[in-house]
C-alpha cells in the first residue's frame, strides 16, 4: 500500500512541481524581474539541446533499473555511441564532406552497435550473474580506453576532426508560434524525438501490459514468473534498450548537436552517463520526471553562457562544475529514492 501512496504522492508533487517551473519560466521570460536576463528563449533552446543526450541515456537506464538490473555502464555506452557515430559518419563520407545522410547513418550505426554491446553486457549480468556495479564500471573503463584508442587508429589523435551536425527541422506554421515554435518546431529533430520518447516511455511503462512486466520484473519477479512471463527475457530487452538509448545519446552528443568526437581526459561524455543515472533517480523512475531532471542538468550545463551574457564572468573551470554540484545537491536533498525491490539480484528460476 505504501508503494501506491508513494506513487500518488509522487505524481501530484511532480505535476505541481512541473506547473510551478513552467509558470516561473514564463514569468521570467515575459516580465522584467531580477534574474530574467538569465532566462531567454536562446537559453532554453541550449538547455533542451544539452538535456537531450542525458535524457536519452536516462530513460534507457530507467527501464533497465525498473526491470531489476542496474545499468551503471551508461557512461561507457555513451562514449562508444559518441565514438562510433563520428567514426561511421566520417568513414561513410569517405573522409571529406560529411553530409546529412552520413550523419544519420552514423547515428543509426552507433545506436545499433551500443545495443549489441549491451546485449553482450546483459549476458554477463544475467546469465553469468556478474556484479552489476563492478561490471558497469568496467564498461566505463573499457570506453575510456578503447574510445580514444579507436579514435587514434582512425584519425591519428584521440579526437576527430571537426564534423558537421544534423540540421534543424523547421515545421511550417508551428515554428511561427512564439517561444514554443523556436524551441520545438525549429529545432534539432533529435530534441523533438527525445521529448516524444519521454512521453512514449511513460505510456508504455505505466499504461501497457509490457510496462507492467517491466515493473514486475523489478518488484516481484517470482509473481511475474508464476504468471508465465520469462523474467530474464524482460531484463534482456530492457538492458538492450538502455544500450540503444545510451548509444543514441552519445551519437547525439558527437554528431547530432556537437561537432565531432573529443577523446581527451574523460572524453566528451564527461560524466553525462552518471548524471543520467541521477536524472532518473531524481525523476523518481518516471520518464517524464526524468526528462524534467535532465532539463535541469542541461540548464546547469548551459548556465555559463547565460552568466556571461548578463556580465557575470566566472572561470570556465568553475561554471563547468555546476551540473556536478547540482547532482550532489539533488542526491542529498532527495536522498533516498525507493529502488525497485529486486534490483541487483540475479533471478534464477526455481524448478
Amino acid at each position, binding site marked *: 500500500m505504501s508503494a501506491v501512496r508513494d506513487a500518488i504522492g509522487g505524481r501530484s508533487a511532480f505535476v505541481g512541481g512541473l506547473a510551478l517551473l513552467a509558470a516561473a519560466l514564463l514569468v521570467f521570460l515575459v516580465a522584467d524581474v531580477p534574474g530574467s536576463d538569465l532566462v531567454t528563449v536562446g537559453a532554453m533552446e541550449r538547455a533542451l539541446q544539452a538535456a537531450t543526450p542525458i535524457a536519452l541515456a536516462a530513460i534507457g537506464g530507467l527501464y533497465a533499473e525498473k526491470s531489476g538490473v542496474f545499468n551503471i555502464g551508461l557512461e561507457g555506452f555513451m562514449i562508444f555511441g559518441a565514438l562510433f557515430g563520428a567514426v561511421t559518419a566520417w568513414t561513410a563520407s569517405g573522409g571529406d564532406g560529411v553530409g546529412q545522410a552520413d550523419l544519420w547513418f552514423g547515428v543509426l550505426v552507433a545506436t545499433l552497435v551500443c545495443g549489441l554491446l549491451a546485449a553482450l553486457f546483459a549476458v*554477463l549480468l544475467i546469465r553469468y550473474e556478474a556484479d552489476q556495479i*563492478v561490471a558497469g564500471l568496467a564498461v566505463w*573503463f573499457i570506453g575510456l*580506453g578503447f574510445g580514444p*584508442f579507436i579514435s587514434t587508429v582512425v584519425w591519428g589523435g584521440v579526437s576527430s576532426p571537426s564534423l558537421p551536425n544534423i540540421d534543424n527541422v523547421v515545421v511550417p506554421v508551428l515554428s511561427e508560434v512564439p517561444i514554443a515554435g523556436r524551441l520545438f518546431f525549429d529545432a534539432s529533430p533529435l530534441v523533438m524525438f527525445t521529448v516524444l520518447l519521454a512521453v512514449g516511455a511513460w505510456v508504455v511503462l505505466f499504461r501497457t501490459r509490457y510496462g507492467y512486466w517491466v515493473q514486475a520484473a523489478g518488484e516481484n519477479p517470482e509473481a511475474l514468473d508464476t504468471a508465465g512471463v520469462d523474467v530474464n527475457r524482460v531484463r534482456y530487452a530492457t538492458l538492450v534498450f538502455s544500450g540503444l538509448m545510451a548509444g543514441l545519446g552519445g551519437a547525439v552528443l558527437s554528431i547530432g548537436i556537437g561537432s565531432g568526437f573529443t577523446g581527451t581526459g574523460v572524453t566528451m561524455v564527461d560524466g553525462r552517463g552518471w548524471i543520467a543515472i541521477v536524472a532518473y533517480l531524481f525523476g523518481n523512475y518516471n520518464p517524464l520526471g526524468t526528462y524534467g531532471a535532465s532539463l535541469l542538468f542541461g540548464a546547469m550545463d548551459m548556465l555559463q553562457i547565460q552568466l556571461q551574457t548578463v556580465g557575470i564572468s566566472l572561470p570556465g573551470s568553475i561554471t563547468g562544475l555546476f551540473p556536478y554540484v547540482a547532482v550532489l545537491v539533488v*542526491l*542529498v536533498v532527495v*536522498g533516498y529514492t525507493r529502488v525497485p525491490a529486486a534490483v541487483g539480484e540475479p533471478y534464477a528460476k526455481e524448478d
Partner: protein
Amino acid sequence: MSDAGASHVRAALDRIVDRMLRASVLERIVIAIVSTTLALVIGAGIVALSGYDAVEFVYSLVYGAVGELSNVAFTLRQSTMLILAGVAVAVAFRAGVLNIGVQGQFVVGGFAATLAILFLTPLLPANTVAGVVLMVVAGGAAVAAGGAYGALPGLMKAYAGANEVITTIMLNFIASGVVYFLLDAYLRPPGAAAPNTESFPDYVDLPGFAFGSPSFSVIGFGIALVTVAVVYVYMTQTGSGYDLVTSGYQEPAAKYSGVDPNRMIVRTMTLSGMIAGLAGALFAVMILGYYSDPNTFPTFGFDAIAVSLLAANNPLGVIPAGLLFGGLDAGGQYIGFTLDVPSELVDGVIGLIVLFVAAPELFRAAGRYTGLGGDAG
C-alpha cells in the same frame, strides 16, 4: 554436551571453514590470472586487427615493464602509486562502501601537500632536516585533506542516503575543477605558460638510491608497503577494523553487536580518503616535484579499483596486483613511444580485466564446460 565434545565440533567446523576459505582464495587467484590473460589476448587481438604487430606488442609490453633498470624503476614507481591507491579502494570495498572517489581524494591530498610545502618553505632554513620536516608536514596535510574529502560522501551516504558511487564520481570532477581553478588563479608564477606551481626546493624530495631515477624512490615504495601492513593489521587484528568489515558484509550481525552502520560508513570513507591523500602527497613530492592541472594526472585512482578487485579487496593481495598493473602501465607507455600503438589500449585492457573479474561465474561455467577444475574434481 560436554566441553570436550563442544570443542571437538568447533575444531571440525574450523577445519571446514578453513578449507573453504583456502579454496576460495585459490579460486580467486586463478580467476585473477585467467582474467588478466584473457584481457591481454583480446588486447593483442585488437592490436592485430588495427594493423599492428601483435607479437611485437606483447614483447614490447614486457620489455617496457622490466626490460631495463630504468623500466623497472618506472614500473615500481607506478606500482607504488597503484598499491597505495589500491589499498585505499580495498579498505572501502571490504567494508561494503564503493568509494570510486579515490582519484578525487588523491588530487585533494596532493594539493594539500603542495600548499603545505609552498607556504612553509620560506619559513624554514634550506637544508635536509627542513626538507624532512616539510615532507612529514605535507604528508600529514595530505592525509587530513584526503580524509576530509572522503568523509564528505561518507556523510552524504550515511545520513542522506545518497548513493556513494555517484557522489564520489561527481566529487572527482569537482576536485579536479576546483584545484585547477585555485592553481591557475593563485599559484601559477607570473608569466608561466603552463598551469604549474613553482617547483619544490631540491631538498624536498625522496632519495632515489639504487635506481637513480629522479621520480622513483625506494622510500616511496616502502611507504606503500608499510601502509599495506598497517591496514592489514588494522582490519584483521583490531576490534575497530573487525567492526568495519563485518558492517560491510553482515550488517544485521554488526548492528546486533551494537555497531552503528552509519558511523562505520563515515569511518570507512575517511580512512580510505586518508590513504588516497597520502598517495597524493607521494605523487606531488616523489614524482612531480611541483603541482599541476589535475585533469592531466594519471588516473591512479581509477586503475586502483581494478587493482583492488583483482586482489579480491584483500590488502595483501593489492601488492602483487599493484605490481602487475604497474608493469602493464609502464609497458603501455613504452609501446606508446616505440610502436606508435596508442597507450590508451592498455586502459581498455584494464577495463576488460575488471569486467572479467566481476563475472567469476563465467569462468566457473567455462571450467565445467571444459571439465577442468571446480565441479569436475
